[in-house]
C-alpha cells in the first residue's frame, strides 16, 4: 500500500455515482496500480477515463440513452471495463497502448444505433466486446502487435456489424453473431501465424475474411 502511494498519484474528478441526465465524469490516473470507478444513470451522460502507468484499472458504468464512455490507457498490465445498459445510441471507445492490457466493453438491453470501438497497440493484449439485444449497432476492434486477441459477440441482433482488424504476428480474431438477421462480420489480418474465426446464425448474413501473410488460418461457420 505504501509502495502504491509512493509510486502513484491518482487524480479522480467527479467520480463515484452521478444520478441525473447529461452528467460528465472525468478520471485521470498517473502512476501504477490505481483503481477508479464511475457510475452514471440518466440520458446523455459522458464518462472519460485516462491512465498512465502500469497495473491500473478503469471501470465505467452507464445506464441511459445517448451515453458516451471513453477510456484511454498507456502502460502495461492495465484493465478497462466499460458497461452500458438501456443504452440507445450509446458509444463506448477504449484505447490502450502497451503490453498485456485488457479492454472489455458491454452494451445490453434494447440498444439501437450503438457502437463499441476498441484500439490496442502492443503485445499480448486482449479486447472483448459484447452487444446483447441490439439493432443497427456496430463493434469495431483493431490491434497492432503480436499475440493479441480480439473477441466480439452480438446476440439477438439485427442489421448490425462486427469489424476486426489486426496487424502483426500470432494474433487471433473471433466474432460470433447469434440469432440475427442481416448481419455482417469482417476480419482483416496482415502478418503471419494469425487466426480468424467467424460464427453466424440466422438469416441473410454475410461474413468476410481477408488475410495477407503466411501460415494463417481462417474459418467461417454459418448456420
Amino acid at each position, binding site marked *: 500500500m505504501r509502495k502504491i502511494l509512493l509510486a502513484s498519484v491518482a487524480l479522480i474528478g467527479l467520480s463515484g455515482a452521478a444520478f441525473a441526465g447529461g452528467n460528465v465524469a472525468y478520471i485521470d490516473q498517473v502512476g501504477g496500480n490505481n483503481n477508479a470507478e464511475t457510475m452514471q444513470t440518466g440520458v446523455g451522460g459522458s464518462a472519460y477515463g485516462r491512465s498512465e502507468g502500469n497495473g491500473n484499472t478503469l471501470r465505467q458504468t452507464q445506464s441511459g440513452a445517448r451515453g458516451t464512455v471513453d477510456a484511454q490507457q498507456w502502460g502495461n498490465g492495465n484493465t478497462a471495463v466499460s458497461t452500458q445498459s438501456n443504452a440507445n445510441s450509446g458509444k463506448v471507445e477504449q484505447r490502450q497502448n502497451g503490453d498485456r492490457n485488457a479492454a472489455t466493453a458491454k452494451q445490453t438491453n434494447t440498444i439501437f444505433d450503438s457502437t463499441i470501438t476498441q484500439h490496442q497497440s502492443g503485445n499480448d493484449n486482449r479486447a472483448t466486446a459484447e452487444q446483447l439485444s441490439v439493432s443497427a449497432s456496430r463493434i469495431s476492434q483493431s490491434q497492432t502487435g503480436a499475440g493479441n486477441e480480439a473477441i466480439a459477440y452480438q446476440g439477438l441482433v439485427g442489421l448490425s456489424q462486427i469489424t476486426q482488424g489486426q496487424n502483426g504476428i500470432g494474433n487471433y480474431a473471433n466474432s460470433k453473431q447469434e440469432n440475427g438477421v442481416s448481419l455482417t462480420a*469482417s476480419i482483416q489480418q496482415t502478418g*503471419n501465424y494469425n487466426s480468424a474465426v467467424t460464427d453466424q446464425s440466422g438469416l441473410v448474413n454475410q461474413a468476410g*475474411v481477408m*488475410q*495477407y501473410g503466411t501460415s494463417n488460418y*481462417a474459418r*467461417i461457420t454459418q448456420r
Partner: protein
Amino acid sequence: MRRILAAMAVIMAGPAAAQDSRVTTDQVTQRAIARAGGSVADTMQSGDSNKADTVQSGSGNVATITQSGSGNVAAINQQGMALRAEGTQQGVGLGYSI
C-alpha cells in the same frame, strides 16, 4: 426527358446501394443471397501455407474461398439446398475440397 431522368435514377441507385456493403461480396451475389434468404461467406488469403475452412448449414448459401500462394489448403462444407461453393487457388502445392 422524364424517361431519361428516371433511367439515370435507376442507374445511380446501384452504386449507392453497393457502397453500403462492408464485406467483399459483390452486388450481384448479395442480391442472389437476399432472394434466397441465405448467407454468404467470402475468404481471401494471400501468402503461403494458409488454411481456410467454411462450414454452412441451411438453404440458399454461397461460399467463396480465394487463395494465392503456395501450400495453401481450403475446404468448404455445405449442408442444405440451393447452395453454391466457389474455390480459386493460384500457386503450387495446393489442396482443395468441397
